[in-house]
C-alpha cells in the first residue's frame, strides 16, 4: 500500500509514522490514554501548549454553547444541500463554508480587537480609551461593530453574557475582556445618545473574546467556532436525509415544502419574447443603448 504523503510540506503541526501520530511533539494516543480532554488537544493543536484547567473549562463552555444554533445560515445551508441527497460530508462542508463576513465572523472580531490594542499601545492610550475610539470610528463611518447584534436574538444573544460571566468566574479576565466590556459600554452609550434601539452583544463578541483571552489567534478562534457548528449542522442535514423528503418540493406532503413552486416570488423583468437570431444583433444593440438592463445587473 502506497503510504507516501499526498502533499510534501515542512510542517510544525504533526508527523505520522508507522508507529505513531505525533502532534506538536505529543503522541496523540498517549494524550488520550493520559486522560486529557479534546479541549486540551485544541490548545496543543493551535498553541502548542497544554492549557491550565481553567482555560480548558472556558474552551469547553464556549465550544459547547456555540455548537447548536437551530436554524442559522449554516444549518439552512446543510439542509438545502441535503435535499439533493449527496453524501453527508458535502452538507457539512457547505455548512461550515457559510461562515463569512456576517455569519459568525470570529476572525474579523479578533482582528478588530488586535488592531485597536496595537494602536493603543503605539499611541500610549488605555484600553478603555481605545474601545471608545473604536466605537466612535466604526459608528461615525457606518461600519458595523463586530460582535454586536444578532438578527434573531434581538434582546441580546442568550449565550453571550453567560460566556462573559463564566470567563470572569474562572478568573480569566485579561486585556481582551477589558476591551470588549469597554467596547460594549461605549457602544450602548453611543446608540442611546443617538436615540437608537438597544443592540446587545452576540456570541462572537463574547465567545471570541474568551477564545482570544485564552490564547487563540483570530483565525484559530474562527476555526474553532465555525467547525464546531458543523457538528449540529450535520445532525440537521441527517435528520432531513433520514426523515425528510428529498428535493423538498413534493406536492404530496401536507406542509408546503422548502422549494415548492409556490415559494418562488419573482420580481425581475417581465416575460418577453426571445429574439430570433436574424433579429439578434439589432435587438442587442438597442438593448445596450436603452440601458434598461442596467437596473438588473448584479
Amino acid at each position, binding site marked *: 500500500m502506497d503510504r507516501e504523503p499526498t502533499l510534501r510540506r515542512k510542517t510544525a503541526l504533526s508527523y505520522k509514522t508507522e508507529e505513531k501520530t505525533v502532534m506538536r511533539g505529543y503522541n496523540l494516543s498517549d494524550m488520550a490514554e493520559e486522560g486529557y480532554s479534546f479541549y486540551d488537544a485544541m490548545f496543543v*493543536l493551535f498553541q502548542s501548549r497544554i492549557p491550565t484547567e481553567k482555560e480548558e473549562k472556558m474552551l469547553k463552555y464556549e465550544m459547547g454553547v456555540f455548537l447548536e444554533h437551530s436554524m442559522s445560515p449554516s444549518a439552512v445551508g446543510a439542509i438545502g444541500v441535503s435535499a439533493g441527497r449527496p453524501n453527508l460530508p458535502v452538507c457539512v462542508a457547505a455548512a461550515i463554508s457559510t461562515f463569512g463576513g456576517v455569519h459568525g465572523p470570529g476572525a474579523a472580531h479578533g482582528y478588530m480587537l488586535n488592531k485597536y490594542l496595537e494602536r493603543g499601545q503605539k499611541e500610549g492610550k488605555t484600553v478603555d480609551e481605545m474601545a471608545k475610539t473604536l466605537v466612535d470610528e466604526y459608528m461615525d463611518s457606518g461600519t458595523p461593530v463586530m460582535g454586536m447584534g444578532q438578527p434573531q436574538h434581538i434582546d441580546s444573544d442568550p449565550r453571550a453574557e453567560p460566556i462573559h460571566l463564566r470567563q470572569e468566574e474562572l478568573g480569566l479576565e485579561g486585556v481582551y475582556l477589558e476591551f470588549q466590556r469597554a467596547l460594549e459600554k461605549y457602544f450602548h452609550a453611543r446608540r442611546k445618545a443617538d436615540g437608537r434601539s438597544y443592540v446587545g452583544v452576540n456570541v462572537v463578541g463574547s465567545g471570541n473574546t474568551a477564545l482570544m483571552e485564552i490564547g487563540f489567534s483570530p*483565525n484559530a478562534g474562527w476555526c474553532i467556532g465555525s467547525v464546531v457548528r458543523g*457538528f449540529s449542522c450535520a445532525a440537521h442535514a441527517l435528520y432531513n436525509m433520514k426523515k425528510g423528503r428529498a428535493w423538498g418540493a413534493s406536492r404530496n406532503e401536507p406542509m408546503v415544502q422548502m422549494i415548492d413552486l409556490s415559494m418562488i416570488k419573482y420580481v425581475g423583468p417581465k416575460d418577453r419574447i*426571445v429574439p430570433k437570431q436574424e433579429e439578434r444583433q439589432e435587438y442587442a444593440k438597442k438593448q445596450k443603448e436603452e440601458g434598461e438592463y442596467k437596473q438588473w445587473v448584479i
Partner: protein
Amino acid sequence: MGYLDQEKTDALNKLKKERGVGNLDSEKNPFDYHAREYGTMPQDGKRAPFQWVSEVAYKNVHRIVARGYDTTELMEEGYGVIEVLFVDYQARIPTIEEEKMLNYIMIMMLEDGLSGPAAISRIVAKSKTFLTQACGASIMAFGHAYGAYSSFGNRVEDYIKKAEFENLTLGEAARLLVQKDGIDEALGVSSLMLKDPAAKRMIARAEKLGVAGVNIQFMKEVVKAAQAVSSEPVDIDMLGATGAVMQDLGFTPEATWAILAITRSFGAGAHYIEEVERGDLSRMGQQLTPREDYDGPSDRSVPPLKDREKVAQSAICKTPEEWKQRFEKMKEVRGSGFSIIEEVADPSKKSGMKKVGKL
C-alpha cells in the same frame, strides 16, 4: 407575483405562436407550449405553510434548545461539546464513561498528518480564501475509502443483524462478510496499524470503560476472519477501531462519519493557517505539469476548421455492437470515465415526513 392574467397570457402566447419558436409547435411535445402560463405559482392556501421542521433543535429570541435541553443551561451545568453531540445525535445525556470514550476518540481523530483533509485544506489556502472554505473542503475528503465510516458502519450493522436473524454466531457472520467483500477499503482491517498500537489501545480503553458492545465484538471476529484469508499480516486499523467504538456508543454510521470528519476539520484549519503563514499564494496558470508526467496522445497539429469534417470522428453508434466496441475502445482513453462505474445512490435510505405539517 402569481400568474399573469388570462387575456395578457393569451395575447403573448398568440404572438409567439405566430412568430414560431423552434420545435415548440411539435405534436411530440407533452403539452401545448403556446398555452403555457406566465408568472409564478400562487401560494398554496390548502396546505400548511412552509416551516423549518426539526426534531433536533429550536430557538427563539431568548433561548436555544437542543432535544429539549437549553444549550446555555447545559453549559452552565458543566456539560460541553462531547455531551451535546450525544444530545444532538441521540437525544440523551451520555454516561461519564461514554463521555470519556468519545473524548478519547476525538483526540485521536484531530490530527493525521498530511493526509487528504490537510492536503485539501492547504491547497485551498494557497488560493487566498477564507479559512472556513478550507475547513469545509477538508470535510469533502471523507468518502467511502478515506474515513469510510458510512460504508464500514452500515455493512457492520447489516452483518450483525444477519447474525441475529439467521441465528449465526458473530464469527460466522464475520467470515461471510470477508468471504463476500474481501479485505477492502471499508473493512476496518488492514496492514496500516501493524506497528502503531493506537487502534488496539482504543479498543482496550473501550473495554476498560465498559462501553464495548456488539460492534467491537464483531470487529474482533472480522479481524480473525481477515487474518485467516490474508496473504499478508493485517489487524484492526483506525477505521475499524473508531467506527466500532462509535457505534457501540450508539452513534449511527452516518453520525459517526459526520462527527469524525468534522473533528478532523479542526486540524485541517491549523494546516490552513500554517500554509498561509509559511507559503506563497498560488495564481491561476502558475503550476506547470512536467512533460515527463504526460502519457496522453503525442503532440499533434490542430486541423484547419475547414477540414473539420475530414478529421472528425462521430460518436454515434447505430447498433449495440458498435456501441460496445466504442465503449471498450474509450476505456483506453484515461479521463473519459468509461473505465469506472460510479453508482450514485440515495444515501438517505428512507424519505418521508408525512406526520408533520397538517393544517
